[in-house]
């Protein structure tokens, strides 16, 4: 076994470990990582985030346990002090010695602190580590105490990092002043015009910018009180954050005689090897092509190259030219720069668009022959960045009228760049993780991935800076669409099964709680897809009501009512078959009146009462239940109604008692949970006034019995139900319905109604007839007894909820107060009330 020692546990050092783990070579290598900071590697790019939420662990690239789980020994808070190349060992600050076969230097960089007079004064900080931020924050607090005016903080350096630092001090309640030596902000990325736009935007946000200022002294006796630029020029500030560039942390290499650049940095070749072939250098300490690259993406690529080289994959070499394009949101302002942001006249010409009233600036640089995009700058709106960047990276042809690249998106609202699928497979989409378009689209085409989250899990695209997310989303969506795919077979990232498989597992292993399911066959902590799904399975297996595990239910099931657009609920009592007595109608009227509910007749022959506040639901239901009502399950993926025409009870054409049979069926299947809602209908003759063939099951009275139809629905994609059996009596109807419904519940995908389920069923309606009528699978008696046990276990869940204090207690808007939600506003609508319209 060989030993690799990684010196440095920053983003690039971590990435080396991650890429190593991904190659599954840990049996042949032992990895030892030394980090100087006390924490495991964290995301320095999002450092200012730490000020917003103060959560250091959220920034971690991986938790400490990850290293141990992957056989990586991580030693933090320990600096490596010497490299002994002859003995291939290193020693640490407390004189421990370790030997290596390969040494990877990922020591990164430190902030460059210019030798300005007074730089050692109290109140001068650098911006690099979480500890730096904590020190800045602590000092800011002491400044703010007892101060009416916000204290002022200067940031020395108007580059990327300096502007991030300015945001951080602004978030701490200080007045930020950015001081830059150059005549523009972000001098490497922006031209003067775009810098002006950015400066204006920053000023409107309260960030002061001082350009063309050479700081020659820091004044103050013990602590800083100001900066002096010239003899008569300066600003008074209470704090200074230095962000004037980086210097590679190359001291280890210097003392052991590795080849160095004249201005620092460890010289590496395109294998990331230093002048000693067993020592590699990656990240901001490595001098490649005579350049130090202070961006994450090239650092990650270097890590990939070093891993490959060590594992003997010698083909993988560092790219010759490094893409330094950047896109970021600085204090809410989009800023992007790609390729050659500035254009020497001998190479091409620039097309500019500027709108000062909207703080917008766009620039593209075009080759003289007008065929290629060489680079550009976007400030204020960077939505076109991904497409422009791809055009640039892949030398793709551009429109003859090149200005369409930037103004197309303004005049007609969409860029004239065509489909994302037009870019070549080799085009790099995520530069942080080196993911190409092919890497994203091919697994979808092969069926290995079916969703954005699966693609991200497989490729790690979007997990770096996140800038490519819109592009990756488009690629996934358009690829899926091009394959005509929408459905995803497995449930979600937590359960690697189809609903049918999960149903089987729960049944066999008698799983009845979500935690048991996670422990037995899931991973992670669940989500809004798998929790209601499991709840539905438990209900189908044991007739559990949503009261049993309320938190895994969708909100409608959790509160046994239908949420409406202002967060209030509607109440639907069951009115079987649509038949209702005068007394019950009066009760509904009284309840509606007492609680100011808006009432409307539904499509399923019942009455919906809208606008009930969460904390009113138990009282409303108490009144309804006392009058003999039950839950209508309008909120559930369950049996809704069995609609009927009036049948032979009154109708002169009626062949049978459709109302009576509809009531019997609704009473039988009420409370039955299923993959999606189920509706039924019973018509007393072929005139079909109950629209039974537009339902999941429908019965039509004919000479000699009932015709039974299944798998129809109305809605967005109407389907007529298909004939399952003819001229059968009531008992046979029930028998077939038991079998059919139970088979559907067992086998359908989540949220799949009976019509698409039948389309997916191999053999279609004739196969269903074989199973249900001829019992070809010999499961009919099992299906019937499963259904019977569900019917026997039925109870009205609203009655259950209001009779149990613990269950009832969840129907409150505030846990600590009896008050109503004071955010609700109702406005009159004809003779009733409705919620105020949404403003957005």
């Amino acid at each position, binding site marked *: 076994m060989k030993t690799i020692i990684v010196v440095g546990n920053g983003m690039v050092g971590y990435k080396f470990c991650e890429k190593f783990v991904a190659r599954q070579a840990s049996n042949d290598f032992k990895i030892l990582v030394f980090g100087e900071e006390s924490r495991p590697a964290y995301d320095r790019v999002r450092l200012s985030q730490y000020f917003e939420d103060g959560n250091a662990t959220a920034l971690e690239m991986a938790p400490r346990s990850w290293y141990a789980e992957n056989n990586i020994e991580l030693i933090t808070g320990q600096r490596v002090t010497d490299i002994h190349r002859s003995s291939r060992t290193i020693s640490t600050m407390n004189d421990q010695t370790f030997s290596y076969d390969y040494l990877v230097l990922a020591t990164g960089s430190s902030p460059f602190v210019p030798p300005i007079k007074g730089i050692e004064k109290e109140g001068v900080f650098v911006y690099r580590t979480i500890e730096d931020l904590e020190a800045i924050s602590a000092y800011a607090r002491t400044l703010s105490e007892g101060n009416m005016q916000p204290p002022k903080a200067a940031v020395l350096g108007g580059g990327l990092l300096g502007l991030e630092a300015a945001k951080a001090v602004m978030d701490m309640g200080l007045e930020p002043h950015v001081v830059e030596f150059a005549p523009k902000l972000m001098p490497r990325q922006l031209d003067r015009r775009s810098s002006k736009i950015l400066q204006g935007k920053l000023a409107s946000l309260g960030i002061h910018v001082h350009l063309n200022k050479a700081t020659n002294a820091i004044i103050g006796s013990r602590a800083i009180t100001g900066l002096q630029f010239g003899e008569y020029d300066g600003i008074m500030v209470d704090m200074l954050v230095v962000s004037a560039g980086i210097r590679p942390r190359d001291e280890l290499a210097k003392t052991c005689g590795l080849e160095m650049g004249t201005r620092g940095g460890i010289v590496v070749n395109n294998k990331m090897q230093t002048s000693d072939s067993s020592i590699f250098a990656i990240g901001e300490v490595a001098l490649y092509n005579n350049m130090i690259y202070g961006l994450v993406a090239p650092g990650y690529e270097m890590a990939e190259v070093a891993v490959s080289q060590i594992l003997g994959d010698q083909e993988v070499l560092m790219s010759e030219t490094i893409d330094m394009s950047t896109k970021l949101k600085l204090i809410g302002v989009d800023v992007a720069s790609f390729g050659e942001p500035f254009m020497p006249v001998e190479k091409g010409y620039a097309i500019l668009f500027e709108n000062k009233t909207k703080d917008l600036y766009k620039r593209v640089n075009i080759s003289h022959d007008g065929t290629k995009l060489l680079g550009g700058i976007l400030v204020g709106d960077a939505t076109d960045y991904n497409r422009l960047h791809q055009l640039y990276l892949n030398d793709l042809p551009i429109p003859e009228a090149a200005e369409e690249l930037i103004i197309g998106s303004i005049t007609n609202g969409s860029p004239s760049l065509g489909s994302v699928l037009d870019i070549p497979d080799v085009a790099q989409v995520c530069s942080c993780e080196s993911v190409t378009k092919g890497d994203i689209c091919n697994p979808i085409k092969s069926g290995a991935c079916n969703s954005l*989250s699966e693609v991200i899990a497989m490729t790690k695209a979007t997990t770096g800076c996140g800038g490519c997310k819109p592009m990756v989303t488009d690629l996934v969506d358009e690829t899926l669409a091009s394959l005509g795919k929408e459905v995803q077979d497995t449930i979600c990232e937590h359960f690697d099964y189809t609903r049918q498989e999960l149903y089987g597992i729960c049944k066999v292993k008698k799983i009845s709680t979500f935690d048991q399911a996670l422990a037995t066959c899931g991973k*992670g902590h669940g989500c809004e897809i798998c929790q209601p799904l499991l709840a539905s399975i438990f209900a189908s297996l044991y007739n559990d009501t949503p009261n049993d595990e309320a*938190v*895994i239910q969708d909100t409608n099931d959790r*509160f046994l009512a239908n*949420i409406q657009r202002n*967060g209030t609920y509607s109440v639907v009592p069951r009115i079987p078959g649509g038949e209702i007595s005068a007394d019950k109608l009066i009760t509904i009227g009284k309840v509606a009146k007492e609680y100011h509910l808006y009432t409307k007749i539904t499509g399923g022959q019942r009455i919906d009462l809208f606008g009930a506040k969460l904390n009113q639901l138990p009282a409303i239901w108490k009144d309804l239940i006392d009058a003999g009502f039950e839950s209508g399950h309008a909120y559930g993926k369950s049996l809704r109604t069995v609609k009927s025409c009036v049948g032979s009870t009154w109708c002169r054409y009626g062949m049978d008692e459709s109302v009576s049979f509809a009531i019997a069926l609704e009473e039988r299947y009420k409370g039955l949970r299923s993959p999606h809602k189920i509706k039924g209908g019973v018509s007393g003759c072929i005139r079909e006034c109950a629209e039974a063939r537009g339902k999941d099951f429908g019965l039509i009275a004919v000479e000699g019995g009932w015709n039974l139809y299944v798998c129809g629905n109305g809605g967005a994609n109407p389907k007529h139900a298909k004939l399952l059996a003819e001229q059968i009596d009531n008992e046979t109807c029930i028998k077939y319905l038991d079998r059919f419904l139970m088979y559907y519940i067992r086998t359908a995908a989540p949220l799949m109604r009976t019509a698409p389920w039948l389309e997916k069923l191999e053999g279609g309606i004739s196969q269903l007839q074989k199973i249900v009528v001829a019992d070809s699978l010999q499961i009919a008696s099992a299906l019937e007894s499963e259904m019977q046990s569900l019917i026997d276990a039925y109870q009205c869940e609203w009655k259950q909820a209001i009779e149990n204090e613990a269950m009832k207690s969840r129907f409150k808007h505030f846990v*600590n107060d009896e008050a109503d939600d004071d*955010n609700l506003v109702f406005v009159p609508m004809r003779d009733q009330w409705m919620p105020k319209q*949404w403003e957005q």
Partner: protein
Amino acid sequence: METIISTYTSVNEQAVKTWYKAGPVEAFPDNGGVCVKYKDRQIAVFNFKRKNTWYACQNLCPHKLEMVLSRGMIGDANSLPKVACPMHKKTFSLETGENLDGALDAIATYPVKVADNIVYIGFSE
């Protein structure tokens, strides 16, 4: 409506000046949310038992500005704890408040601590 949103800004633990006593642990369902009233604010509090962590955020969903997030389901996406709004299933990180499935504004998050069986929410004023 802007004014309602602006009453909610994230608080980090260092900035807490008031630990508001929200109630006893038993009042908070395991792995679910409830809404706590603090002055004129509504704060959603989640006892994420499976992770042994408590989270708090604004009850207001930035999508349609309704007070509903406490009624959302919680869970995780790539190990990141999240809440799904019950209205349109917009999801937000419980740690950073970031909208995970779109470009909505982030929601404000608040620190929670539990001491002697009492749940406290941290505010910065």
